[in-house]
Every structure is written in C-alpha cells, then in structure tokens.
C-alpha cells in the first residue's frame, strides 16, 4: 500500500498507464543489488532510487579518486578518498530517504558472491572488469536472478538483459577475457547505459515492455546511433548450458 507521500512523490510515473499504483507498489517491494558504484552504477542507482525501488544495495570496495569524477556522478569533490559505497549511499539517501539503501564495502569474490546476492531479486552489472562480471553472471544463473548487463568504453556502451534459463547469458555472448585495464570514457556514456539498465530493471519489476532479451544493444555516441545484435543462448555455455528453460 502506498502512502499519501508516495502517491504524491511518484505521481508522474503512476500516471503512466503501464505503471499505475500497482506498478509503483511492485517497485516499492523490489530488492535490487547494484554491483559497482562507478559510472554505470552511479547512473543506474540514482534513477532506481528516484523511481522508488524499495531496497537498493550498492557494493564497491574502491575509494573515490579525483579521476573518477568525470563520470561517477554519485561522488563529488568532497568525497575524494572516501569509500565509494558509503559516498554513494549518502547521496542516494538524501535523494530518497524513504528507501532502504545499504552499502557493502567488499570485493565481490567466488567466496562471498552467493552470500552477497542472497535476498535480492535483481542484479545490476555495473562492474569495471570482466572476471567479476562473469562471476556475477554465473551466480545470477545459479540463483535464478535476472542480471542486467552494461559496459562502456569511450563513447561506446552496451546493454543486455539476462533472464536465467531463458535467454543468452553474458558468457554465451562473450567467451574471451581482457585484462582489467584503465579504459577511456566520457561521462555521458555510462550515464546513457546506466539509464538503459535502470529502465530495464523498472520494466522487469513492473512487468511491462520488451526487455533486451537475446538482444545486445550497442550505443555509439560518436555516430549517435544504436545498433542491436541478435544473440543466442549457447547450449555449450559453461555458465548456462546446463540450465533449462523454466
């Protein structure tokens, strides 16, 4: 049940026929795990907080550096040197204090990933390296948790939504490994992609629209175009090949 305050706060999105009060209640009950509070995580977290997702957990083990501030908009000048997870939750709570917003200052590893994602309905992949993305992808499949992928490089961004057992997973699409690198990026790119991830999350929670299922969306900010590639579930995939359509 939405409160009088919530009805007013979310009035403009409740006006969207596909959302309505019922959709807003679904958002209020949802529990979203955001892996990373960098460029993608900042953008996704802000809009999921503004939309009224009831419980948001942000996970990041890094500290804020000056060179983060061109894109990681949850972190400001005054935050340089602070833990990113704490810096992020501080802003998110100021944006919407009605929500349950949790910070976890840990590195996501094989040893803790299942414990970290337990009790969450969705995972937003806002990481900055492939090994942790693969780790989360595999854990999401094992635990049957939808996984919302995003990645950026320069003016390019990508997004894809993974529904375990039903769609191609990240490992079906990417088989390679690239070393963790210092990558070039302009802040508007993760802003766009983080918003696309947040849009996908909202649609999934409310149960509306067409998700990026088996569709790898590539955004090219330089040419200002979106290209959509069809991808398929790989029966031999080492992460999801054993998972049958539910």
């Amino acid at each position, binding site marked *: 049940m939405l409160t009088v305050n919530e009805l007013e706060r979310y009035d403009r999105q409740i006006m969207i026929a596909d959302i309505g009060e019922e959709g807003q209640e679904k958002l209020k009950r949802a529990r979203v795990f955001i892996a*990373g509070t*960098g*460029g*993608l*995580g900042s953008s996704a977290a802000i809009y999921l907080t503004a939309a009224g997702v009831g419980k948001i957990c942000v996970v990041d083990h890094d500290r804020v550096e000056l060179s983060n501030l061109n894109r990681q908009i949850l972190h400001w000048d005054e935050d340089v040197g602070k833990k990113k997870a704490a810096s992020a939750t501080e802003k998110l709570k100021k944006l919407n204090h009605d929500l349950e917003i949790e910070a976890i200052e840990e590195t996501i590893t094989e040893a803790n990933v299942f414990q970290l994602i337990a009790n969450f309905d969705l995972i937003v992949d*806002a*990481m*900055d*390296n*492939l090994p942790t*993305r693969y780790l989360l992808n595999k854990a999401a499949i094992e635990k049957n948790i939808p996984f919302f992928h*995003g*990645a*950026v*490089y*320069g*003016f*390019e961004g*990508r997004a894809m939504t993974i529904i375990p057992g039903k769609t191609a997973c990240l490992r079906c*699409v*990417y*088989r*390679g*490994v*690239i070393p963790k690198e210092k*990558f070039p*990026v302009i802040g508007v790119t*993760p802003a766009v992609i983080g918003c696309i991830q947040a849009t996908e999350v909202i649609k999934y929670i409310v149960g509306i629209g067409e998700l990026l299922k088996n569709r790898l969306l*590539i955004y*090219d900010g*330089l*040419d200002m175009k979106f*290209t*959509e*590639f*069809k*991808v*398929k579930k*790989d029966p*031999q995939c080492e992460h999801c090949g054993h998972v049958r359509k539910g």
Partner: protein
Amino acid sequence: MSIEASIHQALRHLTNGQATVKVNGNTVGQCLNGLVKQFPGIKPKLFDKKGRLLNYVDIYVNLESSYPEELAMSVKDGDKLHITLIIAGG
C-alpha cells in the same frame, strides 16, 4: 562478392579512420583476410599468431552473432559484417 565490414571504433585508427570497409570473400575468414590485405596493421588486433580469431573479437553477420562458426561462416554478396571488441568498462 562485396561485403561491407563495419570497423569497431577502437580499430578505426588502423583503417585510416574508415568506419566501413568493402571486403570480398565467401566466408567471414576470407573477408577478414581481405581486410588485413588492405590494412595489415589490423592483423594482430584480430588474430593470434596461429591465425585464430582472438577471443575478445566478436563478428556479427547481418546483426547476428557468427559464433560458433565464426571464420568458417558463409557470407554472400550484400551481407554486412560487424567487427566488434569486447568492452568491460563501468
């Protein structure tokens, strides 16, 4: 056989800045070899020393993944190839 190959942004400095290049071939592999003939500097960004496609390079034919056939996948006149690289920044 005229195939249009779209070059990933991160590789365009190796194709004189060209976003698309016309290549010829009956398979993805032949098309990529044709691309390498035009722009030899791109070879180490696509293939390992044994001539295998690097595992962080993904080829799409008419917007569909070429995996698992990849280099052996047939192409025909008018097809469009996208040469992409994995990205992982956040």
